[in-house]
């Protein structure tokens, strides 16, 4: 009988790797937290960094959320160990989705938090050590090769034009309307920007 999730997701969900058991003992070099219990997904991620080589030597986490969220953070923690800070910073939801052999469409947004938690941990490490952040990417990566549509265009559609559904995004940009192979990634990128936008709006309200 099939599961709604892939075998990889099932594995990471039933046997999550790198759970943070004792935060004090771990003595993190950087810590990031994203999400909140209100929306149903929340993650904290902690890293240890080899200062000379700027490599992540250990990564642990805790997650409040569904099977997608738990397995995303678990697989991400495995991916991150051994990477340079720069490489880790570039991990995107599509990479996580690939490692998990995919998630159902309505669950993609649960995987979009993990990489932000990791980037947040790296940002924290850099800040603690007064190091500049040279890793922030500029959204020029092309997502839809047929129509030459970049991350930045998706961001504009979300932030400036208010796109919140994939249909709306396609309405504004025509992304994925040719061969369609970029659609899963386009959805993930859209979710990223929506989440960022919502967090920005929350912060503005609090001010």
């Amino acid at each position, binding site marked *: 009988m099939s599961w709604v999730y892939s075998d990889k997701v099932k594995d990471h969900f039933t046997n999550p790797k790198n759970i943070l058991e004792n935060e004090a003992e771990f003595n993190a070099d950087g810590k990031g937290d994203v999400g909140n219990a*209100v929306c149903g997904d929340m993650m904290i991620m902690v890293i240890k960094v080899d200062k000379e080589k700027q490599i992540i030597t250990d990564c642990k986490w805790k997650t409040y959320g569904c099977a997608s969220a*738990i397995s995303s953070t678990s697989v991400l923690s495995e991916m991150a160990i051994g990477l340079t800070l720069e490489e880790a910073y570039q991990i995107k939801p599509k990479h996580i989705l690939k490692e998990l052999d995919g998630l159902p469409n309505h669950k993609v947004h649960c995987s979009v938090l993990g990489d932000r938690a990791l980037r947040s941990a790296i940002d924290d490490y850099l800040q603690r050590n007064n190091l500049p952040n040279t890793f922030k990417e500029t959204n020029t990566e092309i997502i839809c090769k047929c129509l030459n549509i970049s991350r930045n265009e998706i961001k504009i559609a979300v932030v400036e034009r208010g796109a919140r559904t994939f249909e709306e995004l396609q309405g504004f940009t025509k992304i994925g309307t040719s061969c369609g192979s970029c659609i899963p990634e386009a959805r993930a990128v859209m979710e990223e920007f929506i989440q960022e936008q919502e967090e920005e709006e929350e912060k503005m309200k609090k001010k």
Partner: protein
Amino acid sequence: MDKIVYLDNNATTPIHPEVRKAMIEAIDYYGNPSSMHQAGRIVSDAIVDARKIVSNFINANSKEILFTGSGSESNNTVLNNVFSNCKKNISDTDSDKCKIHIITSAIEHPSILETLEHYETLGVEVTYLPVDEFGMVRLQDVEEAIRPSTKLITIMLANNEIGTIQPIKEIAKIARKHNVLIHTDAVQATGKINIDVKDLDVDFLTMSGHKIYAPKGVGVLYVNSKNKLYPLIYGGHQENKWRAGTENTIGIIAMGRAFELLSEEMETEMAREKKLIGKLKQGFIDKVPYISINGHPEISLPNTLNITFDYIEGESILLYADMEGIAVSTGSACSTGSLEPSHVIMAIESRPERAHGSVRFSIGRNNTEEEIDYVLEKFPPIIEKLRKLSPLYNI
């Protein structure tokens, strides 16, 4: 399907073995009940019998029973009836006079809430009454919401998620006082608490087959003989011209048998289920810290237990439980493809986390004490494991 511990009877129930027998027999009675020859008459007689049994169960008259395709259809029929009644009975110059206002509760089933949202776009005004922390509608709120244009109060007899039983008899009194129609969605209450339509004094009442060990695809609408009913589906004389379409004969015959079995089994079964739920509830209270019980402690369905497990999320609980062969449901936003948490839990407690961490256990006639013991053995480690993963659990 492997044998599982099925604790999701409020979602749907397995078919009673006696109902299954009746259905298999009914398959061979293929006639159209509207036909005058014997192939048709044998079926129409069976439907007459089924209708009588259903009407007896709720202390109504056969003529007051309409068989529909589902509880949702019955609910839609009532709302459509109120709407049609006004729109058809006014002249052009009176268009102001037929303002329609309907009162309902915030915790109704989507087949009431979403249908009302649709009617709001057509100009109907709706008041969605809040509930207290136990999910109970306050009588004072009902009375205060009534206006000259109020045509209907529709409030469920018992809630499917948290089990709270509403004071429908008292609400009906208020409705009568103000000459307002009263409907109650009794889908979840049927077969769990006594239903007497004369005692309740309601105008309409909805029931559904697949919650009472009958098949999916058949429902009932009780229509108090005082009331006219406009069809939702036109085009035939079936069901007293209330609902066109050749009858779901197998489903209706199954309903009759299911209600017959309910009259025989309900009392002892409910006492048994109440004990099992009590054991499950006490077991959780003893073994799992940081939980809260959702719903009213006493005025609640005997088979339903809804618990919020703090610090963890419902879909992950549900899937771990599924791996142990236990079937339950959750109010979390992450389950079932909707991104909204349970509107029922949100109505009794405004913290969404309480909805995200909620699990509903609803037992039925097939559940045994051994199964309850199994759940109490398997659940605490699941909760503990998920709490160890959670950033919110800092104990």
